[in-house]
């Protein structure tokens, strides 16, 4: 089936199998491997991308369902060399170990902050509870998101 999607600001026309998962389309066809796969039961969130600005687990939908929509992956979050404030905050607070969950964590957090510029710790915990991290124990991730949100409150881009 022919689909046309906007990926990270770029229009892409593609011919995909109807049963192809969005995550496989992103990783195998678009070669955007920053979107990871950690499970086959839609439980881990490593595959999270933004679809029209909303965080979705890209393993839970078919590529054809993204037709005519905007997809943002981790690769599209930074503007050239300039990192998104969440990415900078994850660096400053050390919000990762192996980093395999990180792109998904950051995409979910981006959606969280777009809905709630200054979430409480409780809201952060609930907001990213669908994303699993087996390495960090989460505290450093929560600190990173708090850092990004306070940066925003401080008026930084």
């Amino acid at each position, binding site marked *: 089936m022919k689909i046309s999607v906007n990926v990270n600001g770029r229009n892409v026309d593609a011919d995909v199998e109807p049963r192809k998962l969005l995550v496989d389309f992103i990783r195998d066809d678009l070669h955007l491997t920053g979107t990871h796969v950690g499970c086959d*039961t839609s439980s881990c969130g490593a595959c999270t991308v933004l679809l029209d600005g909303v965080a979705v687990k890209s393993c839970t939908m078919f590529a054809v369902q993204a037709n005519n929509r905007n997809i943002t992956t981790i690769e599209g979050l930074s503007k050239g060399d300039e990192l998104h404030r969440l990415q900078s905050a994850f660096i400053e607070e050390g919000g990762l170990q192996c980093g395999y969950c990180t792109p998904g964590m950051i995409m979910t957090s981006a959606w969280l902050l777009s809905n709630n510029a200054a979430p409480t710790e409780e809201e952060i915990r*609930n907001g990213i509870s669908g994303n*699993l991290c087996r390495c960090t*124990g*989460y505290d450093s991730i929560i600190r990173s998101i708090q850092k990004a949100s306070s940066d925003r409150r401080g008026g930084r881009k």
Partner: protein
Amino acid sequence: MSEGQLIYSAIGSSSQRVDIREKVDGSLKYFTDMKMDGMLYGVVFRSTVTHARIRSMDVTKAISMPGIRAVLTSRDIKGMNAYGVIVPDAPVLAYDKVRFYGEPLALIAGDTLEQAEAAKDGIKVDYEPLPVIRNIDEALKNDAPLIHNNGNIARSMKVERGDLARGFKDSYLVLDRDYRTHMQKHMFLETEAGLGYLDEKGVINIFVSGQGAHSYKGQITRALEIPPDKLRIVNYPEGGAFGGKDDVTIQILLTLLVMKTKKPVKLVLTREESGAGGYHRHASLIHLKTGVSKDGRFMANKAHILLDTGAYVSFGPSVLDTAMEVINGKYRIPNISVEGTLVYTNNGFSSAFRGFGAPQGNFAIENMVDELAYELKMDPIDFRLLNLLQEGEINSFGNPERDTMGAHVALTEAKGSRLWKISKKGSLPWIKVGLGVSFGVKGVGYGPVKDVSYAAVEVIPSGLVKAFFSNADYGQGINTGHLQIVAQKLGIPFENLRTVNADTAECPDTGSSDASRSTFTGGNALINACDQLIEVMKPEAARMMKVQPTEISYADGKFTFKEGSEVSIFDIASFMAKEGKGTKFIGSFEMPRVAKPIEGMIEAPRFSNAYGVLLSLVEVNELTGLVKAKAFDFYADIGKVINPLLALSQCESGLIQGLGYAITEELTYDVDGKPLNTNYTTYIVPSTTDIPSIDVRFVDAVEKYGPYGAKGVGEIPIVPVASSLTNAVHDAIGMRFRELPLSPPRVSSRMQQNKGISVLA
């Protein structure tokens, strides 16, 4: 040689991970992300029965299926077709028998993953089923079927000291208890994965998950009969390991696929496969009998530790030694008897998992210690402090204690924890609050086995120093920690340093990333490499400056003549390069060992130990049996802290894996030995809503032999978690749990029983 003035202090600074930018922008290529032109997809055909003799296996149909390039069985293996880091008892591809559900029987390479998967239907195996052994008790029955010809006991060890009978006779209080712990899965987010190819020089290059590139190389060359110079292994970067990628996982399978197809091959385990075919933490059964005097001094400790190693031994013997090592805590116990038994069952495959037997041993002894203190009406920390060995005293395994000072400090500091002051009143009548303590020990390194590590530094004239070592960075941050050590030693800014990690083609053998050893051993080997760099470059510098070597000194990346003229190591490197001299220097370090090893023990006693004291605040819901950890205060002696941020991260990491182990995580098998819960929906790892508030303090301590005083931090945080939680639950509801996990059904059924309400089994 003097290190001179440093421009800044790299040790103790929270340097950012060297690869963090690529991790946050999504550009880092993990093994699951790698691809090559013309690449084939490998899949593993696995047993769908648990214990059986293989009458015959027919793969002819599979070979003729569309897109199939190879179907490989044991007949395609020329070498010994066996692996196992200590004893090679596991077949690479099974041929006469299968011993666990999911054991590899054949490999398929196809043009597409779908074709390779489909070809599994073209393989027929005729099994003669054998009875399944599901636990330690069944394995040890007189009439138990044998999993291996040599019986179901893989190892027996016994260590005795003093006069046990006398110790118990002289005791005021003796408790006799049984403890049971369960199997835990690593559940790293990236499953075992890799890509291999044959290069134009005929070398098989394997980029694959793992913790010990050189160790795999040895195992692969032995199993498949490949000359060592025809094989290269790379283990970086990868999505978590925790011990589950320590022994061989898919390394040999992938090499065999490349060897036979001569094409690039990618192999990624599915989550289910990783669950059934991958490793897990040993279940344990520990009988413990401990006696104390009226004034609270240990008199005797008798332990029998049984571990379920599953179908093969892997790291089992070392894990058993470690459990035996910690079963006396670090307490002054004059009379001991510690017996260990490693038992085969058909429960998959146990191996290394963060803590490596210490969490099991700790669970038993620290529950016991808490119960003894309670019965004696002593403060649980004072009781531990009273019995904790002083440096210089002879410990339970017969060696002078050398590093418990930090443990004394940690326990003493824990007495000042904020958590002692928190009200024990629950928010609702059925919410009970409790506070528990546990004291953990985890040895650093391999114990009595000779362990020499090699690492290298190379000066590149353009202004870089590269560090080469094989301790894989699977997320713990060893790339960064090691560079901080090099930065400190050479006085070179971090920006001018690079690592080459876990690549057998370029890195000397630093050993594996395990046993909390990488910082200690690899760090020291790098320091030694830097010493050699300075020693070799000094006369070259003198030659360049036309002075005597004795007239110059090294500091901050340059040699300085007394009158102020100087030459940098980069200039020296280009000077040396012009004369055809190499500027890569290999250093080594031999891990110190205890003076008196114990005959037969291969992993214990260890020379250096990390310590951790954990206070846990819990809430127990009396209606549901839910145990919720509310706060952890962790006091750790890991020696000098190289990088506070990364060390904190390792502590948070281990504490939360320990929380999962204690409460929600339990790998289970059905009556036929098939694993029941191998994915994230059925096997519950902690999520953000489960975690307590965590406070971590590092005590001021220095390990004399460690690099800049460091020990190791990877494992100690997980060790005391489960026992600290059961002790907290006792404080909350007055019940002792001697079996893990503290799952709601277990906790609520015990509470019902306690109230005299009978519950259905």
